């Protein structure tokens, strides 16, 4: 994790959140019913909010 450059720090956080999200989707896909529209990938902001809410990472 890059501790000094805010831009790189944010990219690291997004990458970490995306990794968590992929894991989450992999598991949830087993429980979902296949629908007419696939799940839309979240925006960077949505990913960060989701990750902060559940993992508590800032």
């Amino acid at each position, binding site marked *: 994790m890059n501790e000094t450059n805010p831009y790189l720090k944010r990219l690291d956080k997004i990458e970490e959140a995306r990794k*968590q999200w992929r*894991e*989450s989707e992999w*598991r*949830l896909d*087993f*429980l*979902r*019913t296949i629908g007419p529209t696939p*799940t839309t990938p*979240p925006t960077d902001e*949505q990913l960060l909010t*989701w990750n902060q*809410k*559940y*993992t508590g990472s800032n």
Partner: protein
Amino acid sequence: MEPEVHRLELNLPKQHWLHERTQPTTPAEWFAQKFSDAARRFGCPFLEMRQTTHDGFNKVTPIAINTDFFAGSLAGDSKLGHSVIYYEPEMQFYYFEPMQQIYKPTTPEKLQNYYRAMLLRCAQELNHDTDKLNLFAEFRSDKNARALTNRAKSILAVSPDFFSPTRPHQRIRGVELHERMARKFVDELLSVESGQVLMLADAYAAFCSLLKQRELEPIKRSDFKAMVGPLIRDQFNVALRNDLVVDERQGVRGWKNLRLSQTVPS
């Protein structure tokens, strides 16, 4: 030559596993690390046998499964925002969509697929010191998977007011709930009785009061007709007619030889 040693073990991740993620070395450690909440509550995922060979090598074989742990693990990983519950009034599993913040129905079969996939993933990720036969075959059998979801019904059961308006949990109020209720309505409230006429208006009124009782949104009469008509035809082999005569009224819409019971399904 030293004899081969067999030892039964209940392995859990080491002391600092919450803070320092060490690589799991046995299936029990792997699952306990992935589902730490379930491990805390229900204990070790497997009973494992460690075999130390003459030349000092170890082999770990998971020999028995802790059904409570795996049923509990179906509750999902709270760190991912996951939650699976069993709603007894409808005998239905629901899972939480963390992005949409809403519960949606799922089935025991889907939960069983998920359980089997996790076992396979564990077998693939662990090294060759693990005997993978049980992980791949025995524990993934239909019998074991069914036992798991049956146990989960009690472990994941929530109170009947879980989805009530005063609670924070919301579920999708889509057509699937109405459809499920329609099946219950046809299965449990209707019966064959020669000479009787079930009027569409009466059936619709009874269905609406059932929906109200279950705190479901009312549906239009045309939707009710489209949903229930085929179910009645399949179950009782009678079609909706427009030419029935009831109390000297002509052209009444309904089903012949069907009776509506007054007992509300449980």
